[in-house]
């Protein structure tokens, strides 16, 4: 009985981890390619969810339409996240490149991203208040009960989807021209410019990917948990950072492993020691890793060590 319960918890942990994966990948892309700890990511995530909810609940602003179908609403939410991400690119990363040549030496993009975090979060709070909102989709109770285990089908689907997205991303990075350009920028932005890569045109792609990943992940969250809130990004974002570090900064496959490990350690810690222990478990794990094996499981040695 206990064994079965623990096994169920392992399943739950993996499902929970799937929520963290896409966000962790978004973090890891920003830091791996641009050496930018992008704190706007939680806000982008929240933005996609809340915009999706708002559209499916109220419809377009100014009474332009009635409530929109939840699926379409989420797609628009994702687009909003991408646009917001591009806005961040315009005012943080690109601005720096123009002004200082190499943006990575400074803490400035990090600070700017914190500024944007406040901007997006409070825009939503102004518009919709601080309440958690129910997000209704047709999939309220789609559970697959097999051999005494419960597996939520939307969660399973999201796990598979997350892995597929990461696989596609990994393909993009390793096989395509854009991917090679991105890796060149990651290696050395100045050399990349000299090699004829148009950094100003390639870098926005990273931000589009970041917005897209946040949007997808927020949609998965909304469908799975039937709710969104202005604080959903903070809750997922901090865990996703932990997942990124565990996986190794800059490694997209590492982000998958990291996400699953964080999900697992969280659920098992909750199951055995109660909910309040999860915070200590996850962050201690991260601290130990950062101090003793800063490359994480799959990371490179060079990333993230540059001084601020």
């Amino acid at each position, binding site marked *: *009985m206990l064994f079965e*319960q623990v096994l*169920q*918890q392992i399943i*739950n*942990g993996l*499902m*929970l981890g799937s*929520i963290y994966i896409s966000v962790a990948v978004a973090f890891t892309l920003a830091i791996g390619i641009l050496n930018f700890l992008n704190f706007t990511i939680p806000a982008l995530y929240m933005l996609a969810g809340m915009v999706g909810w708002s559209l499916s609940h109220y419809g377009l602003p100014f009474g332009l339409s009635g409530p929109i179908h939840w699926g379409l609403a989420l797609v628009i939410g994702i687009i909003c996240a991408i646009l917001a991400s591009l806005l961040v690119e315009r005012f943080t990363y690109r601005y720096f490149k123009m002004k200082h040549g190499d943006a990575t030496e400074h803490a400035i993009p990090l600070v700017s991203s914190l500024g944007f975090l406040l901007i997006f979060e409070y825009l939503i*709070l102004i518009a919709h*208040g*601080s*309440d*958690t*909102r*129910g997000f*209704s989709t047709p999939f*309220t*109770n789609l*559970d697959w*009960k097999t051999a005494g285990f*419960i597996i*939520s089908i939307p969660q399973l689907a999201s796990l598979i989807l997350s892995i597929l997205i990461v696989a596609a991303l990994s393909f993009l990075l390793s096989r395509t021209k854009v991917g090679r350009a991105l890796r060149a920028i990651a290696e050395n932005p100045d050399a990349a410019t000299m090699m004829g890569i148009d950094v100003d045109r390639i870098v926005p792609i990273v931000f589009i990917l970041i917005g897209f990943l946040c949007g997808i992940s927020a949609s998965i*969250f909304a469908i799975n*948990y*039937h*709710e969104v*809130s202005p*604080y*959903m990004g*903070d*809750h*997922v974002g901090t865990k996703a950072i932990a997942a990124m570090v565990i996986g190794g900064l800059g490694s997209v496959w590492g982000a998958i492993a990291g996400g699953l490990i964080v999900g697992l350690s969280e*659920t*098992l810690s*909750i*199951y055995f020691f*109660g*909910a*309040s222990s*999860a*915070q200590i478990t996850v962050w201690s794990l991260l601290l130990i890793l950062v101090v003793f094996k800063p490359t994480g499981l799959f990371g490179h040695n060079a990333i993230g060590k540059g001084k601020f």
Partner: protein
Amino acid sequence: MKKLKPIIWGVLALFLCVSGGIADTLKIGHIAGRTGWLKGPALPATVAVDMAVKEINAAGGVNGKMIEIIEFDSGSDPKQAALAARTLAQDHDVLAILGPFSSGEAQVAFNVAEREKIVMMSNASSAPGLTKDKEWAWRITEDEGKQFARLLKTFNEKDVARDSVDIVYVSDEAISAVVGTKLYPFLLKKFGIKHGEPVAITYKSFDLAPQIAPIVANNPDMVAVAGLPENASKTIRELKRQGYKGRMIGSQIFADPNILELFGDLAEGTTFMAGFHADSSSKAKAFNEKFLKETKAAGIKKLGAHHTDAQSYDAIHLFAKVMKEQNVSGTKSSLTADRLAIKEGLKTVKFSGILGDNLCFSGNDAELPGYVIQIKDQKWTLIASHAPDPC
């Protein structure tokens, strides 16, 4: 510089006119939560406060003077709540203060009230013992423990299946933690109901699968939840997902009319306590209808008045009544005396409002009625009413 002179004089004159006008009002401070993490529940309460003030003033005010609310937004931050208390008491010379909203803010702001010697009446904080050993700190809220005892009493009377209960509580939120780890276990034991070790969830957790699994395995008759509406919503969702068939119960922490929408069709059968029920009297019904209209006009979506809204509304009427009885003048010279008079007045006041009739304070906490509410067919249904305890 010459051009500026008339402007300066104009501003000064205007200022004098305005401050001359202020002297004729009775000022009540309001530490509101217009921003911050409790904006959701706290913002509608400001609408209720405005309603009460308008009504009182339309009826001629108090002793011929208008009531004036001086509002200070604390942003749900204890630091700002203390600043608010200090500012209202020292700079605005208010006679009494309504708020702050949450227990965390109240803990800090009550200290200021004690030092400044001004009545501060929290309209929502329900953590046990907050006003203990305090003279100037008051609350127009009902104790969570008392409300939950009333719920259990009703279960006894109606003989609802109640052999075993499991407890879920939010461990990083003050009231929920106390209620979940202390009050619920104590009361369940007192009523002879078996209960398991309380199960913690956190404010941040959104996936409750691991916590809920052992409960579903236990399959108790009822699951008692100590948490805000969103936590309760997550709990009930996960309970149902894992196939739990029993009933979710709670004291008044998640008794927000908006839970109908938040819980959706999973809410059916959920039974809990509320400090306010629109069908309890005609006055309450009228308030509820007007409140819904006003919140809608303010762009706030409410399905009904929360008891914190009703308490805020009644608190203003209560202040008005006490000020009338004590004949406070509101002038600067009698400020200390007025503040003292209000405090003394509260000790003996009998007050009827939308919360109930002939309400009074025992200690510094109001004795309020409780309503056992069950969600049936997506509606709040009154199961039983409990009269307030004697003072």
